[in-house]
C-alpha cells in the first residue's frame, strides 16, 4: 500500500469532502502507523476516529490520517480483476452464532445495527432434522437475478465474480431486493444514525462506504480489503474460523488461521451451494454441519433480548409449520 503525503493545510473538512479517496495508514493494534512518520508533522489537535483493519476503533490525530491516491476509479471498480474468481466457504459445523462477523461488518461499513450484510439464521429444515446455524453473506451469484433486473446498472457483476452496488447511481427502486431470493439486500431507510461512525472511506464502490440514504446496500466481499491483500472483515473476526475466503483460480481459501485447497475442502467435506435449484449459481459454498464443534443451543446463550426474540418467533413458526 502506498500513501501519498498529505498536502500541508488540508483541513479535515476538505479531507471529508474528497473522502472517497481517503485511506488511512494501516493502524495495527500496537498503534504503529507504518506508513507515516509522526515526527515530521505537527499534531493538529483534532481527533478523528478510524477503524483498523481488524475492526477496532481508534482515535488518532487528524494529521495522522493520510490521503491515499484514489484506490480505484469507478470504471475499474466496475470491471474487477479478470484473473480472479472470489469464493467463500462456510463451515456450518463450526458456527455457534457468535455474531462477531455481523458486528465487524457493521462497523467496517458504518451500518446501523438494524442493517446486517451478513446474517446468521437458525435453520431447521424439517420436523425431525437437526437445527444448525447458517451464516449468510451475499452469495455473489454467477447468474445474479438482482443484476438482471436493475434498471440503471447500479448493481453489476464483475469479472472477478463480485456483485457490487454503485450507490451513487442506485435510484432506490428496490427491484433488486425483490429479485434476490436470499434476502441479501438491505435498504438504507434513513440517514445513518450510528454514533460510532468511522471516517475512513477507501473508495466509493469497492468499500461500500458511505452508505447513502434511499439506496440499496449489501455484502460486497470487501474488495477494498482484497486490494490491500487482506481478508474481508468477517473472516478475520470469526472466533471459530467458520468463514473461508479466497480465489477459486488459485484454488486456495483461508479463514485467517489456516489456508486450504478449495477443491479439496469441498470434495472432502461434501461442500454444496445453498438452493442450487434456483439456478443462481452462488459463489458461496457450505460445508454440512457434521461432527459439530458446538451444540446449536449454545448459540442462544448471551444473546441480547431483542435478537433472541427474533429467533424465538421464528422458532415458534417453524414448529407451527411442521406440526
Amino acid at each position, binding site marked *: 500500500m502506498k500513501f501519498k503525503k498529505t498536502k500541508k493545510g488540508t483541513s479535515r473538512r476538505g479531507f471529508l469532502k474528497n473522502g472517497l479517496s481517503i485511506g488511512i495508514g494501516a493502524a495495527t493494534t500496537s498503534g504503529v502507523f507504518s506508513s507515516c512518520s509522526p515526527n515530521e508533522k505537527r499534531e493538529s489537535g483534532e481527533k478523528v476516529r478510524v477503524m483498523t483493519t481488524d475492526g477496532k476503533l481508534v482515535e488518532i490525530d487528524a494529521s495522522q490520517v493520510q490521503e491515499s491516491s484514489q484506490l480505484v476509479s469507478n470504471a475499474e471498480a466496475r470491471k474487477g480483476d479478470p484473473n480472479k474468481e472470489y469464493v467463500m466457504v462456510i463451515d456450518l459445523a463450526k458456527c455457534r452464532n457468535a455474531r462477531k462477523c455481523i458486528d465487524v461488518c457493521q462497523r467496517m461499513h458504518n451500518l446501523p445495527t438494524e442493517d446486517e450484510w451478513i446474517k446468521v439464521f437458525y435453520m431447521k429444515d424439517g420436523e425431525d432434522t437437526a437445527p444448525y446455524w447458517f451464516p449468510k453473506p451475499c452469495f455473489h451469484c454467477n447468474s445474479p437475478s438482482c443484476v438482471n433486473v*436493475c*434498471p*440503471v446498472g447500479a448493481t453489476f457483476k464483475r469479472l472477478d465474480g463480485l456483485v457490487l452496488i454503485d450507490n451513487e447511481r442506485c435510484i432506490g427502486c428496490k427491484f433488486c431486493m425483490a429479485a434476490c431470493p436470499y434476502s441479501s439486500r438491505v435498504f438504507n431507510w434513513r440517514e445513518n444514525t450510528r454514533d460510532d461512525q468511522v471516517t475512513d472511506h477507501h473508495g466509493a464502490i469497492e468499500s461500500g462506504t458511505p452508505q447513502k440514504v434511499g439506496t440499496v446496500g449489501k455484502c460486497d466481499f470487501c474488495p477494498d480489503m482484497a486490494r490491500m491483500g487482506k481478508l474481508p472483515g468477517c473472516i478475520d473476526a470469526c472466533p471459530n474460523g467458520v468463514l473461508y475466503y479466497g480465489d477459486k483460480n488459485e484454488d486456495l481459501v483461508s479463514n485467517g488461521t489456516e489456508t486450504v485447497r478449495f477443491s479439496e475442502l469441498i470434495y472432502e467435506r461434501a461442500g454444496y451451494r445453498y438452493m442450487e435449484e434456483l439456478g443462481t449459481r452462488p459463489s458461496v459454498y457450505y460445508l454440512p454441519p457434521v461432527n459439530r464443534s458446538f451444540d446449536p443451543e449454545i448459540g442462544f446463550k448471551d444473546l441480547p433480548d431483542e435478537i433472541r426474540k427474533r429467533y424465538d418467533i421464528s422458532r415458534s413458526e417453524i414448529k407451527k409449520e411442521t406440526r
Partner: protein
Amino acid sequence: MKLDTSTVNALKRYAPQLETASLLEKILFWIMIIFVLAGFPALFIQHFEGHYVTGMRDNVFWGVYIVNFIFYIGISYAGALISGILYLLNVEWRKPIIRIAEMITVISTILGPIYILLCMGRLDRLHHLVLYGRIQSPITWDVIAITTYLVGSIIFLYLATIQDFAILRDWKGLKVGKWRHPLYRFFAVSYQDTPRQRKLVHRGMTIMSIIIIPLAVIVHSVLSWIFGMTLRPGWHSTIFAPYFVVAAVFSGTGVLIVAMWVYRKLYKLEDIITEKHFKYLGIILLVLGALYGYFTFAEYLTNWYGSEKWELELIYKLFDLSEFGWMFIFAAFVGVLLPIIIIAVPYFRSINSITFASFVVVIAMWIKRYIIIIPTLETPLLPMQESRIEYIHYSMTWIEWILTISGLAVFCLFFYLYSKFVPIIPVSESSSLVKNPEEELETNQDTHHDKDKI
C-alpha cells in the same frame, strides 16, 4: 362552424354543469381539496426523513404505494379496453359513457406512476433511468410501456373531444368565465366540422382505438412481470400477465360503473345514462368477474395442490383468518360472487345494486393487489430472523394512509374539474339523445314509474 338545433338543444341541456356548481358539488370539492392538501405535509415528511417514516422495511420493502400503483393502472383499463373495444364494434350505447371511461384512463395513468415515484428511494436520480437505462430490466419495460400508453390515451381522449371543443367555441350561449374561451379555441385547433375534418378525426379515433387495446394489454402484462420475473412464492407464476390483465379490466369496469352512477346523480343525467348502460356494463362485469374468479381458482389451486414449501407457507397465511384470511375471502369470494349474483339474478338487478356490486368489486380489487404484494414479501425463502420483530409484519403508517387517501382525492378532483371544463357526455356524439324540452317532459313522466328497475 354551424350548430344544428339538436346540438344546441344538447348544449342547453349540458351547459349548467359547466356554468354553475351546486351546493353539494361545492362541499365535495372542498373536501377533496382538503384531502389533497393533507397529502403535502406527508409528502414533505417522507421526502426529508427518508422512507423510514413508512411501514416498509427490509423484508416488506414494497408497501401500499405499489398496491396503489397497480390499482390505478388497473382501473385505467376502463377507457382503454371498454371504450376502445366498444368504439371498434361501433356499439351505439357507448356514446354517453365513452368520455367518462377515457377520463378514468388518462387520470389514473397519470396518478399510478406517481405512486411508483413515492416508492423510489432516490427521486433526485430519476434521470438515471434515461442516462443509464438498461433494456433488460422489467422496470425499463414498464417505463416505456406506461409512457406510450399515457400518450396514447391522451390522444384518444383528445381526438374524442375535439368536436366538443369546437362546439363550445362556437356556441354563443355559453355563460362561463372569459378565460375559458381562448382555451376552447386553442384545443379546437380550427376544427370546422368539414366532411374532411370529420373523416380525419374519425379515422384517427379508429386507429387509436386499435392501438390502445394492445397497449393496455402490454402495460399490465409488463407490470405483472415486475413480480412474475422474481423467484418469490406467489409471484413467480406464468399466468401472472393474463391474470393481471383480467383483474385490471374487471376493476376498470367497476370504477366506470361507479363513476357513471356518481355523474348521473351529480348532473342529473338520468335520461342520458340509463338502466340500459348499467345493465350492459353489468353483464360485461359479470363475464369479467367469472373470468377473474377462474384465474384466481386456477392460480391458488395449483399452488396449494402442488404444495411446494414456500407456496404452501404463503397460502396458509392467506387462509389464516388471523393474518390475511378476511382479505382473501373478500377479494376472492365476496368480490367475485357478489357481483355475479347481483347481476345474474334479474330480481336483484337495479341501477343501485349494480353500482353497489361494482363498488364492492373496486374495493375487492384493491385488497387483491394488497394480498398479492404484502403476504409474498412477508414470506421470504429464508426465515425472517434478521429483522426486528416489529418489522416482520407490514402495517401502513399514517403517512402512507394520508398519501393513499389524497391520491384518491386527486383522482376525484381531476375528474371533477375536467367535467367542469368539458361536458361529461360527448355533445357531438350524443346530441340525438337529448330530446326537445317539450318532449322531454312527457317521457320523464313515463319513465318515472319504473325508474331504477330493469
